[in-house]
């Protein structure tokens, strides 16, 4: 494995990753996929390493995915969440960092509702930091697992037409994915109702359209975003029924995409709102593969960061 490509001690966002670094993560993840198929799903790679999972915002699937990845790598892990931790609102970043430092972790996985908190903590921490989602800013491991899934299915990312549809304004998934997929050479379009688009959406780096049909025309990949039902207070759409009517992905609408298009979703899905069950459960869907691949990609990230931080090159998958 060429160690020269990967020098980072933190994974904070896709924004700072080069194409070579992204590909290196994906290549590394390939070697971890088969661990899940073993009778004993465990490798000794991170034995003796301590990983703290610090979730300031509720998360089930991302935190579980990281936890499984850590356990399969034989790391010692511990989980803090806002409900079970005094590390929470009101504490200064410096105090949070000092408290973590006192436990001498090798890696800290951070999810926070506010943008750039993982970045701010990384500046104050000696241990490596993985951003597991910071507000609507970045979610780099999600983008990497999505790219990994696309590459496994399609054999490449470059040149593919990819549509990402939904609540673009409030989605960290879309931000990281646009950065990641465009850096890998894909042709990315984002779409959603105007009330769910941020100001100057083109600045995200993708083509912007305002209809689902237009977005998925000839697409190789259609990625549906979860509608944040809790944000309905902001009056972004009048009803779930109307959302489904105009922005829900149905089998009928899917005909506009390429015949071999795949359907993705970061989960959890809202059936009958952004995606029809027939699509989510249909042959196009790779939603569960995303979940499975998430573990392998996170194993790869943990492995690369632990190696970079310790300067050890004896780690092998």
């Amino acid at each position, binding site marked *: 494995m060429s160690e020269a490509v990967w020098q980072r001690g933190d994974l904070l966002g896709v924004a700072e990753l080069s194409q070579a670094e992204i590909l290196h993560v994906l290549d590394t993840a390939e070697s971890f996929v088969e661990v899940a198929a073993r009778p004993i799903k465990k490798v000794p790679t991170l034995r003796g390493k301590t990983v703290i999972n610090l979730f300031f915002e509720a998360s089930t699937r991302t935190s579980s995915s990281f936890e499984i990845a850590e356990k399969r790598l034989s790391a010692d892990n511990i989980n803090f969440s806002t409900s079970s931790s005094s590390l929470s*609102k*009101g504490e*200064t*970043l*410096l*105090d949070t960092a000092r408290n973590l430092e006192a436990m001498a972790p090798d890696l800290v996985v951070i999810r*926070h*509702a*506010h*943008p*750039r*908190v993982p*970045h*701010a903590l990384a500046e104050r921490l000696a241990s490596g930091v993985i951003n597991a989602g910071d*507000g*609507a*800013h*970045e979610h780099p491991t999600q983008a990497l697992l999505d790219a990994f899934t696309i590459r496994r299915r399609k054999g490449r990312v470059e040149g593919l037409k990819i549509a990402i549809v939904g609540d673009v*304004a*409030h*989605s*960290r998934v879309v*931000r990281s994915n646009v950065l990641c997929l465009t850096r890998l050479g894909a042709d990315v379009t984002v779409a959603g109702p105007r009330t769910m688009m*941020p*100001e*100057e*959406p083109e*600045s*995200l780096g993708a083509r912007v359209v305002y209809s689902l049909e237009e977005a998925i025309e000839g697409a190789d990949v259609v990625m549906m975003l979860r509608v944040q039902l809790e944000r309905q207070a*902001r009056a972004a759409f009048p009803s779930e029924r109307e959302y489904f009517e105009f922005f829900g992905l149905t089998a009928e609408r899917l005909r506009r995409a390429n015949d071999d298009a795949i359907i993705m979703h970061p989960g959890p899905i809202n059936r009958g709102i952004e995606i029809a069950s027939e699509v989510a459960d249909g042959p196009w869907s790779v939603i569960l593969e995303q979940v499975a691949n998430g573990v392998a990609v996170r194993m790869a990230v943990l492995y690369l960061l632990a190696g970079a931080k310790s300067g050890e090159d004896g780690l092998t998958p």
Partner: protein
Amino acid sequence: MSGSVLIRGGRVVDPTQELDGPADVLIEGGSVTACGPGLPAAESAREVDAAGLVVVPGLIDMHVHLREPGQEYKETIDTGTRAAAAGGFTAVACMPNTDPVNDDPSLTEFMLKQAERAGWARVYPIAAVSRRLEGRELTEFGAQRRSGAVAVSDDGRPVWSAALMRQALRYARHFDLPVIQHAEELALSGDGVMHEGRFSTRLGVEGIPGAADDVMVSRDLLLVADTGGRYHLAHMSTARSLDLIRAARADGQRVTCEVSAHHLLLTDEDVFDSGLDPNFKMHPPLRSAADRDALVLGLADGSIDAIASDHAPHHPDEKELDFVASPNGIVGLETTLSLCLDRLVAKGVIDLARLVDLLSTAPARILGVAGGSLAPGSAGDVTLIDLEREVEVDPATFRSRSRNTPFAGWKLRGAAAGTVVGGRLIELS
């Protein structure tokens, strides 16, 4: 605060006398008694050598937060006015969002007493428009005026109710008090923490659209037309707000506005580039480059009346929170003058006389307070400026109790060299 001083050999810049040239200024009994070249020595007047310095009417920062009473851990009237003196200000107007709120004449009297005790600069309290800043009932404008309040404002919050704003504009006319508005339509600013634009989009940060300010300014100006009240727009930040102010003024309304130095010099791109440093968080937020450019034009063409710092001290621990969680506001008393000298005057955006108008004459006129001129009979308040002095902004050296500035490390040319308040030379060290 009264004393006698003869300031000799400086270059006097005073837009009220259309004066820019070598002159001496004599202050006796707290007031200017003579201003002109080659004044004879006056008995009992202390002489100040101003050779190589610019001598201007004492600068007035018409928008500061001194935090006393209630949040003395951020700032006190003593430390805040010391910062004012260090930054070249002889007077500050302080906002009423203290704890308790300045919604009673006893608070105004307390602030004035504390200012007198400190003795670094004049303090002009601004009374709350509404009790406890709750936006429901008016405070006693008349009693506040008598106690020394110079304006009314709910700054920190908008006067949200159109009905209350209408009554405030009407009632303040009895006492010739300006109503200073923090224009923000809360339904539009929502949970926003930075300007809504391409940079908030890239960061996934909740934005505050420019429309949040503009909608409120627009409403207020209709009420000004309706009531004939006197309205001052605080910390204007958008191009549209400026256009609205221009139109109201052309229509003959009694409307004035101020901008903060940071809105003239920084944009939302700086917030982005800072990596969401809480020292770049304030309200209104740093706006787009187009807004910033429009404000700079407004300065040059005379549409903007005043520059104020919106000095808003916060304890370092509060700015150690992340960007979203940290409070709004930055300190400005010790940076505003140097920023204006280096980035506006030296760059040719405005000349020195115009800067004096923005930082002294206009604030005095808007607030109806002494100062703003060195013509005989004016208050004996003077700021001495060294145009050549090079300074590097170093928060560790601030006299303010707080350190929250986005300008740390900026190298600036031009700084205050001293102040005289009521004929008394202020000595900081």
